[in-house]
């Protein structure tokens, strides 16, 4: 486990924890079923994990709901602010101190039920105009492969663009797509073409209280080892009838 700690907060290598007493702010964004805004409170996978983390680490952490792009920028610019949970990518690696991994996201390409182009490999994606959303690491990834990507404001908007035939396909995390299918009738195929996975993590400002982040990493590691985070994911897999292949 220590190796994970070293990997993610390697610059702060010490043989004991420094003191910490800062309040951390987790800036987050609507991303159902990872995070949804109910009548009274925020719910979802990320909130379930956040509650576990807060309880286990005994750190003073608050959650603030923002648009993803803004949440991302604030975490880049403000000490003791983090954005969660975003894709941990090589391009983003040097911009943050990471507490990682929260879980792995599986991504698939979905098409309209009435117009399905057969896909046998990622090379076939170059035939399609694929929808994603602003700030999504998966949009960046597809563009890097030479795929034409259309970015909507949110994942749901991207799904609706597919329904309205403004795109030919929709790249989405498979739990998110199951949520959309459960709540909206958009005529999108149920089983997509799996093509990528990404580690989702908590990305914190590089000038944040390193002791607090180490404590957070230790708690995350212990919760992972205990199986509690896997249990949370499994309950959502069951609810939305998807298989993350874990």
């Amino acid at each position, binding site marked *: 486990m220590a190796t994970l700690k070293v990997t993610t907060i390697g*610059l702060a290598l010490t043989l004991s924890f420094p003191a910490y007493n800062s309040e951390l702010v987790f800036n987050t964004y609507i991303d159902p079923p990872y995070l949804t805004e109910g009548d009274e409170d925020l719910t979802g996978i990320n909130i379930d994990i956040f509650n576990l983390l807060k309880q286990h680490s005994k750190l003073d952490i608050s959650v603030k709901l923002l648009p993803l792009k803004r949440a991302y920028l604030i975490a880049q610019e403000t000490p003791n602010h983090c954005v969660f949970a975003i894709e941990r990518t090589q391009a983003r690696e040097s911009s943050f101190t990471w507490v990682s991994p929260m879980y792995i996201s599986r991504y698939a390409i979905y098409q309209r039920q009435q117009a399905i182009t057969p896909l046998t*490999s990622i090379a076939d994606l170059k035939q399609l105009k694929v929808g994603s959303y602003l700030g999504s690491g998966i949009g960046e990834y597809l563009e890097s492969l030479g795929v034409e990507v259309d970015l909507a404001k949110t994942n749901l908007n991207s799904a609706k663009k597919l329904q309205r035939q403004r795109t030919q396909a929709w790249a989405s995390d498979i739990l998110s797509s199951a949520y959309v299918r459960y709540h909206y009738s958009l005529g999108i195929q149920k089983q997509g073409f799996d093509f990528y996975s990404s*580690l989702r993590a908590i990305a914190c400002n590089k000038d944040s209280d390193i002791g607090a982040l180490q404590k957070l990493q230790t708690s995350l*590691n212990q919760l992972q080892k205990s199986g509690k985070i896997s249990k949370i994911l499994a309950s959502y897999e069951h609810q939305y009838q998807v298989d993350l292949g874990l």
Partner: protein
Amino acid sequence: MLYWLVGSCWAEDFSPWLEEFQPSSLSQQQQIEELRWFKQAAQPYQGITIRAISERINTHWYEATVIAPLFYQLTGIKVIHEISGEDDVVKKLQSQMDLGINYYDIYVSDSDLIGGHFRSRNIVNLSQFMQHQGKDVTLPSLDIDDFIGLAFTTGPYGDLLQLPDQQFANLYWYRQDWFKRPELQQQFQTIYGYPLAVPVNWSAYEDIAEFFTEHVKEIDGQKVYGHMDYGKRDPSLGWRISDAWLSMAGMGDVGLPNGVPVDEWGIRRHGCRPVGASMRRGGALDSPAAIYAIQKYVDWLKRYAPPEAQKMTFSQAGAEIAKGHIAQQIFWYTAFTADLSQPDLAVTDKDGLPLWRVAPSPRGAYWQPGMKSGYQDVGAWTLVKSTPLKRQQAAWLYAQFNVAKTVSLRKTMVGLTPIRQSDVMSKPFSERSAELGGLVEFYQSNARNEWTPTGLNVPNYPALSSLWWQYIGRASDHGEAVPQIMKELAQSMDLALAKIGQDNPGPCSPKLISAQQAELWLAHPGSPKPKLANEKPPGKTLSYSELIKQWQP
């Protein structure tokens, strides 16, 4: 064309596979036998979907887009072969090993991680697997002895831990057509007093870099540069340095595949235990040779490369030389050979033949015979123990399909990252010598054994490799002083080694030796080496034909 094999009770059509997998070092009959074996061995696993992940180079793109679908058609085992950045592959593998969650069923992991693999006991021992749980799914004609990279994927006790899937080296790259121009040859000779040819040492490389950037400036109306590199503070900067750069300068000790007792990371070992990276603990990461290596890297980047290179990453910099404005590059990955062999590029002639060549890399002032000469990347199939056995077996079939003789020569011709002696010495590969600028000669020679990956001495590559880019980036990207950075890097490496040893005790775990005065170690034979009175000896060049003789079998 149809390829039919009439069996005892049915006829099998292997046309799609036999058409795609040409050329092959096997006869058509032998290919059919291998294909039939895969089909039969896969029967218990039909319907399974497995996940594999590898870095993003042409070879893996071919695997993910051509081989994986054909494997599915043949076996009924569906493969989601993901392509991602090397840093992402490393992080996912490390997370899976640490947490025991089965993110992927198999990885193409660089053999640079082998020092951690043999210590962690999280990786499946392939030698044992092939004899026991994987016996029924191990291809009888796999021919392990035919693989050229086994020394890099074998643990210290002789067990195979990873199966090579692709290999590429770091070589010196240059514009042979420019070097041959009489007016440039004369101008260079006048200024520097020796011929414009392939540099043998860093002094000559530096002179040539200066010559093109500051004296030639323009060729055929285009601004040109004598050097190309990248310097953005990004994970890819770490590989630029840890991929043997300090060895090429001559920082470590003599020894192949890695220096003993001090390797190319500057880490000293006692037996199999890493004991320190700083000079105070017998390491060499803050030694004069290491400072020289990094200082040269920073100076050349700033003085001789295009200005935008300082803010570039590995991926961004890779495409630059194809634009035709770079005279030479000391550190060039042959994985990009196929990309530079297209007929419509500024670096190929009207017939599509290269105007460039690759040659043995020039060496720094501290280098001595018997040290490694450069870096070789060996991406190798790696199974993690946390993957359920049935999934391991299905994934092992896919791994072998990618390297089986039925497939491997065709894959080599596409990706130019050879793994088998039979492919390297084959007629089709040899015949491509003229268009590949020296790659064929390199792989057909023993030189390929002097270009080596990170070795057994690095006890946890993912944990330690991030230190490189975080510290070196402060010099290349932020302009901080190199000696101070190397001092801090060496101290951090020591701390990290201590932590790894503390958290994972074992007979080969790191254990720091007590710190002494650095001068005591500098007076000691070998690495760390004392500062040379002259770090820029006279430049020396050789003709391409002379240098390439080093690569004659």
